[in-house]
């Protein structure tokens, strides 16, 4: 069984992003970029499925600038076998990304697609579900456990109030939540090997899908900052303030 892994290059989770002074975008000059952390969990999960014998090949795809090669190499170092880089100028919306991925899937014919539940830049939480809709495949979002059994996959999902387990008929789409696994640290030999794994390059325009943005970004701004309040000296003083000053208890 072949698994396809869409992976995105995003601002590193530890970077505190700043909006450009004119509000036209986020200042990304000199900022550290990384594989989207939820996508890294997807790579780890696919690798474990391959190690268990449930999968035979892992193909990763990144849509973005030429530098997105780095995140494909990250995926290789964990366990992906080969990659595709779809070069796109600027940010593509999830709908356009899903349309490109659909075209890739039609050619690659994977039985399972695993990706992060959201990218930590635009926090859309859409791509996996859109892709499932376009393909007419079943979907399981926010996965915390994945087990393959024949032509079906059992997925436990994190939902409001607890967990839900569903059974999907393959081919299917799974999006990962935080607690699905903890990605391994790639060892040096794996990193060296990753440099030799093949990457096929194509341009986003070559898929013949409509990439035109549907949303016009009018402005980006930083939200108003909360100001630090006061320090109280004791529990008694705290409760007094909450009762008599803030009036919240």
């Amino acid at each position, binding site marked *: 069984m072949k698994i396809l892994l869409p992976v995105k290059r995003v601002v590193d989770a530890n970077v505190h992003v700043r909006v450009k002074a004119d509000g036209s975008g986020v200042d990304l000059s000199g900022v550290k970029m990384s594989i989207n952390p939820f996508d890294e969990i997807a790579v780890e999960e696919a690798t474990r499925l391959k190690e268990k014998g449930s999968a035979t090949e892992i193909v990763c795809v990144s849509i973005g600038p030429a530098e997105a090669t780095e995140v494909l190499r990250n995926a290789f170092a964990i366990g992906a076998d080969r990659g595709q880089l779809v070069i796109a100028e600027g940010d593509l919306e999830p*709908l356009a990304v899903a349309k490109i991925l659909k075209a890739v899937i039609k050619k690659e014919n994977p039985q399972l697609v695993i990706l992060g539940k959201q990218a930590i830049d635009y*926090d*859309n939480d859409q791509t996996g579900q859109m892709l499932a*809709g376009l393909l007419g495949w079943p979907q399981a979002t926010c996965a915390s456990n994945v087990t393959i059994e024949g032509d079906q996959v059992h997925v436990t999902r994190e*939902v409001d109030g607890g967990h839900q387990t569903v059974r999907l008929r393959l081919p299917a789409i799974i999006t990962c939540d935080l607690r699905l696994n903890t990605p391994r640290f790639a060892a040096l030999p794996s990193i060296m090997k990753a440099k030799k794994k093949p990457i096929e390059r194509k341009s986003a325009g070559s898929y013949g899908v409509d990439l035109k943005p549907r949303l016009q970004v009018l402005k980006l701004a930083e939200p108003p900052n909360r100001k630090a309040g006061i320090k109280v000296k004791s529990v008694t003083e705290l409760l007094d303030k909450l009762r008599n000053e803030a009036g919240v208890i």
Partner: protein
Amino acid sequence: MKTLLVGEHDNKTLREATAKALSCAVSLGGEVDVVIAGRGCRAVAEQAAQLSGVAKVLLADADAYEHILAEPLAALIVSLAAPYDAILAPSTSSGRNILPRVAALLDVMQISDVSRVLAPDTFERPIYAGNVIETVRTTDKKKVITVRTTAFPRAAGGGTAPVEPIPAVANPGTSQFESEELHASARAELTSARIVISGGRALQSRENFTKYIEPIADKLGAAIGASRAAVDAGYAPNDWQVGQTGKIVAPDLYIAAGISGAIQHLAGIKDAKVIVAINKDPDAPIFHVADYGLVADLYTALPEMAAELAKSNA
């Protein structure tokens, strides 16, 4: 302008997220219909009919909708979409699961997590873990929107909308419900509670949540939350996680005990009216956003607080 709002429920009770998303739907202008899809959920439809601002409730009652799976729900919503200019759902785990699938089937780019309506086609939404607010205008004729419910007030009651049963549509049948484990709790729900008390990694165990956090939650009628670190360490269940990748809360009072204040946690609480931080590290980032900070060891401060609250309640 005509809007369809996807109601959120457990086949018995309409969740408050729907009443909040309704306020967003109403602010688009025009009529708002609510669709309730489930099994044996007539009572839910009747609750939705009582919300002020609802023109009509569409009730799809069928076996296929019992567990609110994305595939049959999306098929139903797409079949209803034609007369509507906008389709909305609260940005809950269910809304986030179903609506992007609907959007793709309608060839629409969804606007996720809308926190403010500036015009019927222009919206604000948080991105980068809430560190940036993006203003977007959609060029799609039909709009598909998930609503950040903490940003909108609950719609009032007193409505008397008609409930109209509608037939189920063909179920793609590619997914099956197997089981669920929901935490039965008499406590207030995290995202709608007036008071929330959360614990961090400093709690050190599940037992300490019970011993130190619960007594205060009981006395204040508060919901209980946790930091991601506490959830990852197994001290608290996953659905207690407060933060950008967990639950977004906006209570009147938020008490953070033993939580240092990682960016992604702060993103989930910044709309709280009053934030209290109890932490023994005076340099913890949580103090930069707290209205009231108490530098203290939670193992002495929390029992003291519980005792004082017990005294004043007596």
